């Protein structure tokens, strides 16, 4: 039974049995993992508040192969992000992004950039209020890291560059009008302003994303693009930030 040490951020936790918790973490070395924390709901437990959502901690876990779930042995807080959990609006926006990462990250597929991206959002939210526009840009950045970067420069089918192209969720990029025969392919229009913001977001360092300030119209358009694209990836509708914050 190998013992593994890793840093991780708590994405979510569920009650398990009478006094246990099933905690979902995102680790830079293991990706999204689920671990059982025995006795975590008891008054005198060894984990303290380290299993609260958004906590950045250092874990010691047992890999109980062939079982899918890890067993949590020890958890120490590196940064609690308590300030994020002390504000209703911050809880809502960060929960929404956490659910987004959880939904789109396959288990056991590690990505250091995804881990750092979530950490950057938590550090930003600790001090400032993350607007719905900024959350959208973090989602766009996440898609890039997760292998879903939108191809915006050329038509994904014929590789040519036309001035008026539309976004196809099923192809994950822009398509020109000759490649959309009789409008058979579902596609959405993307304004040049949105294209520019998206390109900038994909290129930019995650720590600098907060400097991009999209207008309300641009943000509305990005929300729609994300909605249709995520629907295509997941095969179901992902709840909007408004729904999470209801």
């Amino acid at each position, binding site marked *: 039974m190998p013992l593994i040490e890793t840093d991780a951020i708590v994405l979510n936790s569920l009650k398990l049995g009478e006094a246990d918790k099933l905690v979902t973490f995102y680790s830079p070395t293991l990706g999204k993992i689920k671990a059982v924390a025995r006795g975590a709901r008891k008054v005198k437990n060894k984990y303290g*508040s380290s299993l609260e959502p958004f906590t950045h901690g250092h874990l010691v876990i047992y890999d109980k192969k062939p079982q899918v779930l890890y067993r949590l042995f020890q958890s120490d807080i590196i940064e609690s992000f308590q300030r994020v959990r002390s504000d209703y609006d911050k*809880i809502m926006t960060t929960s929404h992004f956490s659910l987004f990462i959880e939904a789109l990250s396959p288990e056991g597929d590690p990505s250091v950039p995804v881990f750092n991206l979530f950490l950057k959002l938590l550090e930003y939210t600790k001090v400032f209020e993350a607007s719905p526009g900024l959350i959208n840009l973090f989602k766009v950045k996440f898609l890039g890291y997760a292998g879903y970067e939108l191809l915006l420069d050329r038509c994904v089918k014929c590789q040519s560059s036309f001035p008026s192209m539309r976004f196809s969720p099923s192809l994950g990029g822009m398509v020109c009008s000759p490649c959309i025969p009789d409008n058979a392919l579902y596609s959405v229009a993307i304004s040049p302003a949105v294209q520019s913001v998206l390109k900038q977001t994909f290129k930019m360092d995650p720590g600098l994303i907060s400097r991009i300030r999209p207008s309300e119209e641009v943000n509305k358009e990005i929300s729609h693009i994300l909605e249709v694209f995520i629907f295509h990836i997941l095969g179901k509708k992902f709840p909007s930030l408004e729904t999470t914050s*209801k």
Partner: protein
Amino acid sequence: MDQNGVFANLIKQLTKLPGVGQKTAQRHAFAILKMFPQEAREIGQAIIDIKERLIFCSKCRNISEVELCLICSDPRRDRTKILVVEEPSTVYAIEKTGEYRGLYHVLLGVISPLDGVSPEDIHIKELIDRLADHEVKEVIVATSPNMDGETTALYLSKTIRPLGVKVTRIALGIPVGIDIEYADEVSLVRSIEGRREL
């Protein structure tokens, strides 16, 4: 032993209770077997009674045998205070202390953005309705000190404060009886924030 017989069935049914595994259920089943028939009947009847006779109090949503629970109908209770809890089990725990003389409100859940539970899914509207008669001066939020409990407390504060009612939160921090050096950083910070003058 017959795996489909009445004894095996009792063991199977008892394992549905929290904290009761196969062995404990077996011990309980043998204990019931040794009882007088009347004692066993009383246990069975008590289980049936809580399912058939208990309802939620129409005012505070605590469990009760009558429409208005004993706490809500007690004229000696302090009607200027309402203590908000997640589940009826918390009312029992607080009542056992004998220190609180106000009223209660049971939400029967907590707001949980990660699990998709919104304010409309729990009994917050009923609490707001209870504040309409202006008799209540303070709402004490006693939800669990975890993220869902905190989210609920923050929402209640945001919603109730504009109505001119004082909203307070139970003290959070270090549990009684532990060595302070073993407390985690969040509990320590909370205990410093919630300090009181001696």
